[in-house]
Structures are given as structure tokens and as C-alpha cells.
């Protein structure tokens, strides 16, 4: 039970949502946009957050878009992970989100929620980083669009009152060959020790990671190391490991050195399976 009274808004337009946000903020209230609720409900129950106002944006029609428009895949911010997986419109994104949480939660967690939530792994961002997705945002200043690389730096850097409205992906990327591997620290369903998502960009492989460091990231330096045809696999893996953009994640689920060991194994496996040796 959430032992606190809070106001619940169900706006019918984006403008209304943003207005409610601004108004509540001006009154000094704690405001949260609400999607699937899997984080807000559990954290509020545990007492770690105590919002005064929640604005439920998942009923906005554009937030539920899941369609191809011309050469663009449009993913509404409130589309559930389950819908993304079943639609198979972006197969790499489908397999990545199909390994986040269990099925019950996949039916609740939204794309926007996974990107903007507090759980650090945010694996849904990996395919978006690899496919140069655009993020459509809505906020008090109206709508704006920006490349995901600009908005996502470890987490979504949103302006006050903004929410993820839609994600736009060029279909040239959604249909590209891909590879995904996730290793947990022992469970079938759990947070990643290391997740690697890979997407072919012509002859080159793009790679993004979660679990190994505190933040998910795409690393061109690691891609270059792994894409280098001149070196034997072991050297490429070693070089890629040296290019990690930040320190390794250390928490009670697994130590940093152990995560590095798993990354090493997966990169090696990855190299072997996708035929780097023959390049």
C-alpha cells in the first residue's frame, strides 16, 4: 500500500500534461509522469519516493503508436515492452526488451519507462543507440526532436517537465542483421552482468553495452577494436576491453572484476560466432 495521498491526473493532450506538470511544480509539489507504473508503485510502496502528483500519460494516442510510416518506425513512449516484442517491427529491440524482467512486467513496463526509470541498466536504449534513433520529446516548451545520442548520456537528459513522446527509427536499421547476448549473474530473469547488442552497419558492426559499467553506452572505440580485421581475436578483445569508457560496475549482484571476466568471454564468443576471424 502507498501510505500517502497523491493527486492523479489523466490528461487528454500533451499540452495539458505539460501544463499540469508546470502548475504542480510551481506549487512546490513533487511531480512524476506515469507510464506502466512498475517502478513508481514499487518505490512508493517501499517509501523511497513520495510523489504529490502523478500524471498518467499512457492514454495519449500518440504515446501508443507502433507503426511504420514511410521509412520510419514510430514507437510511442507508452508502448509496452511486450507489444514491441510481439510486433517484431524492430527485431533487435524485440529480443532486447524480451529479456527485461519477466513476462508479467514486460506487459506493464513501457519503452519510455525503461529509458527514463531509475533502474540503471535501461537495456531498451541499446538498439536505439545503434540505430541512430531520434527521440521526440514533449514538454512545457512544446515538442522537440533530438538524436538519442544527444539526449541519452547514461540516462535520459530531459529538460524539466519533458517526457519521451515517441522514438523514431529509420527502417534501414530496424531490418539490419543483428546479434544480442545477455548474461545475468545466475538467473534466467535478472539484471544483466553484461548485455551486448550488435547491429550491422554495412560491413561494420555497431555495439552497445549494459551491465558492464554503471551506465549503458555505445562505444565506437570498442567497435573499432573489434572490427579491426588485421589482428587476431584475442588481441581485439583485449583492446576492446581497454577501451571501456568508464569503470566497471560493482554491486552486490556482482563485482567489477567478475563482470570484466564475463565481458571477455562474451566478446570472445561473439567474435568467434560472427566470423571476425575471416574478415
Amino acid at each position, binding site marked *: *500500500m502507498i*501510505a*500517502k495521498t497523491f493527486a492523479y491526473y489523466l490528461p487528454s493532450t500533451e499540452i495539458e500534461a505539460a501544463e499540469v506538470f508546470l502548475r504542480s511544480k510551481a506549487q512546490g509539489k513533487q511531480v512524476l509522469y506515469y507510464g506502466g507504473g512498475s517502478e513508481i508503485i*514499487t518505490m512508493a*510502496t*517501499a*517509501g523511497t519516493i513520495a510523489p504529490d502528483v502523478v500524471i498518467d500519460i499512457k492514454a495519449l494516442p500518440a504515446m501508443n503508436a507502433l507503426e511504420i510510416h514511410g521509412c520510419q518506425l514510430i514507437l510511442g513512449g507508452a508502448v509496452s515492452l511486450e507489444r514491441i516484442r510481439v510486433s517484431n517491427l524492430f527485431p533487435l529491440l524485440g529480443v532486447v526488451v524480451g529479456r527485461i524482467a519477466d513476462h508479467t512486467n514486460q506487459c506493464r513496463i513501457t519503452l519510455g519507462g525503461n529509458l527514463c526509470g531509475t533502474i540503471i541498466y535501461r537495456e531498451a536504449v541499446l538498439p536505439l543507440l545503434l540505430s541512430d534513433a531520434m527521440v521526440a520529446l514533449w514538454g512545457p516548451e512544446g515538442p522537440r526532436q533530438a538524436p538519442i545520442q544527444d539526449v541519452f548520456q547514461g540516462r535520459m537528459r530531459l529538460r524539466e517537465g519533458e517526457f519521451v513522446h515517441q522514438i523514431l527509427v529509420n527502417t534501414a536499421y530496424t531490418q539490419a542483421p543483428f546479434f544480442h547476448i545477455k*548474461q545475468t*549473474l*545466475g*538467473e*534466467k*530473469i*535478472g539484471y544483466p552482468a553484461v548485455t551486448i547488442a550488435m547491429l550491422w552497419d554495412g560491413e561494420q558492426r555497431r555495439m552497445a553495452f549494459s551491465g558492464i559499467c554503471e551506465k549503458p553506452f555505445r562505444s565506437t572505440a570498442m567497435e573499432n577494436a573489434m572490427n579491426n580485421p588485421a589482428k587476431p581475436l584475442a588481441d581485439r578483445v583485449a583492446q576492446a576491453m581497454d577501451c571501456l569508457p568508464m569503470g566497471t560496475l560493482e554491486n*552486490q*549482484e*556482482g*563485482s567489477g572484476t*567478475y563482470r570484466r*571476466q*564475463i565481458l571477455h*568471454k562474451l566478446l570472445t564468443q561473439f567474435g568467434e560466432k560472427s566470423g571476425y576471424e575471416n574478415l
Partner: protein
Amino acid sequence: MEALAEQDHHRKEAWEKVTGKAVYTDDLPITSHYCARILTSPHGHARILSINTTDALAMEGVKAVVTGENSGIMCGTLIKDRPLLANSITRYAGEPVAMIVAVDEYTADHALQKVQVTYKPLPCVFRPGDSLKHGAPILHEKLGEYARVVDDVTPQAGTNIASHYPVRKGDMQVGWAASDVVVEESFYLPPSAHMPMEIHTARCHMNRDGTVEIISPTQAPFEVAKQNACSFRIPAGNIRSRVPLVGGAYGGKVTVAVEALAMLASQKVGGHPVRVILTREQEMTTMPCRMGLEARIKAGVTKDGMLQAMELTFWLDNGAYSDIGPYMAKSMAADCTGPYHVENLLCDAYAVYTNHTYATSYRGFAHESLTLCVERTMDKLAKTLKMDPLALRRLNALRPGHLSPTGVKCTFSNLGDVATCLDQIKPLSGWNPSLVTIDQNNVRAQGIACFWKSSVPPTDAVSGAVITFNEDGSLNLQTGVVEFGSGSKSLLAELLADRMRISIDQVHVIMDVDTRVTPKHFKSVASLSSYLAGRAVLRAAEDALMQLRQIGAEALCCWPEDIEVKDSKVYRRGDPDVYVHFKDLVYGFKAPAGASIGKQVIGRGGVMMKGLSSMDPVTGQGQISPAWTVGVQVVEVEVDLRDGTYHILRASTVMDVGNAVNPKGMGELVRGGMSMGLSMASRECFRYNPDGKPTTLSLRSYKVMHIGEEPEYRIAFVETPQEDAPYGTRSMSEHGIIGMAAALANALSAATGQSVNELPATPERLWILLKEAQT
């Protein structure tokens, strides 16, 4: 044995459960109930400097705020060392510090946030070994002054020792002298959770006449009445304790804790109905958990593998309060060698206080922990001797004529057949003691473990059964056994149907237990339902049969000994056409001429444990248990040596169940135990920060095995009847768990070549062992 009891039946409550209609305590209507919530300590060890309840009390809808200062009740199963609400000191994170009673859950929750407690943190101690060191913080300064409920606990004032049980047998010097090989191993097992689906809760109201009603999912309703009567100083008969179906217990619902809080809450609001509810997080930290263990074993064998001597020390991590922990230490001491013959023996088992959540019984009653230590030692011996681990075990297996650690002479009846279990596990598991290389990174290996367990009931444990009849001649069976998922009430119905020679459909089982109407069963623990309650049911059946024969004889004009009872009918022997159906007989028989014959039939059966004695305080010798159940388990794993990740491929169990009654039902119980054991051994563990606060307090961070992660299970039974048990059936409902941690650890040790002597056996732990071996 009659055929009926050997058949497979659905358990009586199956349809209610699989359709989601079964009613558990918190499914009962909450109309007119106040709600009580508890505030718990965030510190592992702290002095409570002040509790300010003014703001909470001022809230509209708050009916009472209770703290340790204004309750003052001390609880405990063996030693009264646990305040119902912490009083001036809190000894584990999660300990109840204050309780709010309010009109509803929301108000109670909200009011909890308004209670201000100031603490002064004190040094914590988490491992029993550290707890015993000189200068360690002493948890209970008044340990010597606490009231003791039983005679055989030995709290040592000025230390953190709640109790100590020694076992001495043979001559250690002779044993070591005869040993060619000696190994010494150390072990650490962390505390973990019971994790029932249904969390603890309790309801209570007090009537104007001074009687009290409590409803809760407890394994021990008669203890609820007894202990609460003592705590609140009222006659036990004034307390009525009721138990609907229980949604999983695993030993974690024996302690009387929430029931006492509920009674206190109701008392503070003038007897008004109150429901105490906990969160899942409180279920995990506030309610007692599974014990931790530190242990050291030294064992000596001749070069051909005969065990000569064993020296064992167990330091049981009892957490902040003793509860039943001392008896788990006693139980480990009594069965310390595993099912092996050891002439020369020295064992010391200690229950030690730490700043962990207090420990209580858990499926296996410490044997799941003991067995890991003993069986890892056996594998170490086998490795040193270069012997097949199975062969070493068979060589040393206890046999009829041997003496147990506490000096009980083993017979097939009281022990079962370890050697045959070992023989049968070979084909069942495809036993292969050699490491199998899959490729350059992956290997497969098997691990084996023998187990045994005796139930150690109080020497005066009782049970009882009452049989009444319905208009149609069907039976109602009433026992004090709580149904928490093991199907024991259905098993009792099968015994009754078999003895009465009627269809199982004609037996109705009263699932709820109500201390006002149900004959006492001491506690639904120790897998003793069939042994004790089963005998009570058979006696009640005999009693009913005798009455039926008597009325039948009068009705059919013959002698009672010429009457036969079958298919709900009473016959004259030799002439099956002359009979009276139960429905015309069970309330007395009305003769055609109108004469009334006999009276209502009510079957009753009572039983009390016989022949048990306490352990000698110096040597540990004594018969503390009626019998053992033995078995063998094998686990097969595939390990990736690069990072220690592994899959459990297969798990096999051969258990000597005495006689298989409802074999499918028994198989499912064993399978459930195996799954629970693998989960516990592979991943379950409470972790704590340095201040003693658990960091694994939700099911997000505390992992249990899920569907889809289970291995293939193979189960077979050996049948060596236990002569004094109903149908020769042995206790078996806990036992599937006992050897699993050991078999898994042995398999992983075989795969990695390293000693896996700590749990949980996570991939990272294996990787660390592998890495250490390289450097």
C-alpha cells in the same frame, strides 16, 4: 498393506487450490477490523534512546501506538529472550520496535511514518565465530536471568552462547591412531529465507467474557494458545486459536510472534478485532529465518576407506534470539556423522547469538546444513583416497547392529537401508564419478550425498483424532494437523479409509484447525504427522469400528466378532446379503419393530510419544527420536570453467520411505524439497551492510529458483518398513531438501577441482575459486 493406501489420490483440498478458491487467513472479510502495522528497526544493533509517538497518536483514525516500554512481554520457545517489541535495545534490523493500531491499513501505514525513534548504533557481530571471540559485543547482558521453558538449554551468561550440546563416543586417540588419512574442512552457510507464498498475518479479538479468538497461518495453534496464555497471564482455555489453510510454512510458521502482536494490539483497543499485516519485506527480515552455520570437521580413515574418527564443531548462527535454535543444534549433534558408522566421535554443537534476524526451524531442521558439511568431508576423503565417492559411502554406511552417535542401536526398522539406496541411485542417476569434458571450456560432473534425519519431538508429544458420521454414512475426520501444503490431512484420510475399508470419497476432512474443537496435535512439524497423528487416526478408526460392530451385532442378531465392516456396510460374516448400511447405523439403529439399538458412533483416538529420553548433558547419549529416514541424492551439473556459470542438468533421489502410500503424492513432496534445496544452495542468501541492515530485502534482489530453471528430477523409493509407524511409512515430507546442497556442492567441487564449502554456490564464487587455483 491394503491396496487402497498405495493408490494415487488427489489431495482433498486440491480443487479449491487449483481454482484459486482456497481461503487463507487474509482472505477472510476485514469488515470491522482495525489494522495493525509494525515499525521495525533499521539497525542491526542499537540502543533505543527515545520513541516519540505523539504525532502518530494525534492522527485521526489512530487507535493505539504500542512500544516495548508499554508492553514488556518476553517471548521464546525455549528461552524467553525475545521481547515482543524491542525494549531499549534492538538486536537485529527488522526487529519490531513499535506497533500502530488504526482504523485501516492506510492510516496505520501513514502513522508509522510519524513515529520518531532515535537510535544509538552499537557494534554488530554477524558470524558465530566472531560472536565467540573475546571482546565481541554481548547481545544479551541478562542471558543468565531469562526464564527457560525447557530443561535442556544451557545459555552461558556473559557470552553469546544460547546453548551447547556435546556428543562423546569411543576414544578419539584410538580413532586418530587407526587413521591413515585425516582431512579437515571448514564451512560457512549464510542465513536465508523460508519464502512461503503466504506471508505471516494474524487476527485477534477479545470477547466480553474474557475469551480471546486468534486466526493465523500457524503450524502450532496449540502453542499459540499456550504461549499467549503465558505472555498475557490468562488461562490457556480462554484462548481459541484457529488456522485455515496455510500457504506454505517450511518451518517458518511455528514461532508464536505475529499472534502475540495481534493479541497485544487487540488488548490495547479494548478487545476490538485487529488484523496485523506485514509486508513481504517484513516477512523476510522481521519474521525468523533459516539458520546460518559455521562448522569444522576433522575426519580420519584407514587407507582402505574405513572411517575411524570424526571431530565436529558446529556454530549455529541463531541470530538475535534463540527461538528453536538450540534444538536445531541438538538435532545436528545427535545426527552429526550422517548415516555412517563412526566408533570414535567428538562433537560440539553451539547455538550462537549474532545480529542477524533470529533463526527458526526450516525444512530439514538443520540437517540440510549439517549434511553439506558431512558430505563435503566424505568427498574430500574419497578424493584423497582416490576412491569412488559412492563406494566410500557404501563401505561406511550404517547398518543394523551399529550404534548411532547418541548410542541408539540401529535396526532396519528404525534406520532403513542406506546401502540399498546407494545401490539404487546408480542406475537412476546414471552414476559416473569421473569428470566428463564437453569441450575446452565446459565440463560435466556429478555429486552425491547421503542423508539421514530423525525427528526430535518433545518426549511427551501428543496427537489425537475424532471421527464423526453424517446422515449418508460418510465420515468426518478431525485432527489437529495443520494443512500447509504437504498433503498430510489427505494422507490421514487415506489411512482412515483403508482401515475402515471404505472409499476415500466417504471421508471428509476438516481442513481448519480450531483449538476449541480439534484434539491436540503438538505442532505440525518434524514430518511427524503420519507417525503420530496417523496412529491417532488408526486408533480412532478402531474405536469407531468397535462401536459399529457392537451395534451391528445387535441389529443383525449375532456376536460382535462375527461382524465385518466394508464399503460403508456392516455384514454378518459368511452372509454378505445380511447387512446394515452405515447411514442406518451410525446414529444408532432403529429396528423394524421400532426398538432403538445402540447410540451415535463417535470414534476417538489419542496418542502420546513413548520411549524417548533426553540427551545426556555430558556425552549426548540417549534415544531422542523414534526413527530415521535415510536417502541418497545425486546432482549433475555442467560448468563453464571460464566464468563459473553452470546448469543443473539432473537431480536424483532415492529415499527409504518405509512404505510408499500415495506414491505420486510422495514423489511431488520430494520433488518440491529438491527444488527448494537447489534454490537455497545455488542462490539464496541474506546479505547485510556493515550496520546489519539487509540489502536483499525484496524478491528483486533476493533470488529464488523459478520455473524454467529447474533440472530434470528423478525419484525412486526403497521400502524398508518402520515397524512402529502406521503402515510402516517413514517421515518423509521434509526430506527431499536435505542432501541437495551437499550433492550440488560436491558436483561443483568435482567439476572445478576446488572445495565448494560455502553457500550459496553462485557462479561468481566458483569463478573466484577457479581463479585462486590458477594463481
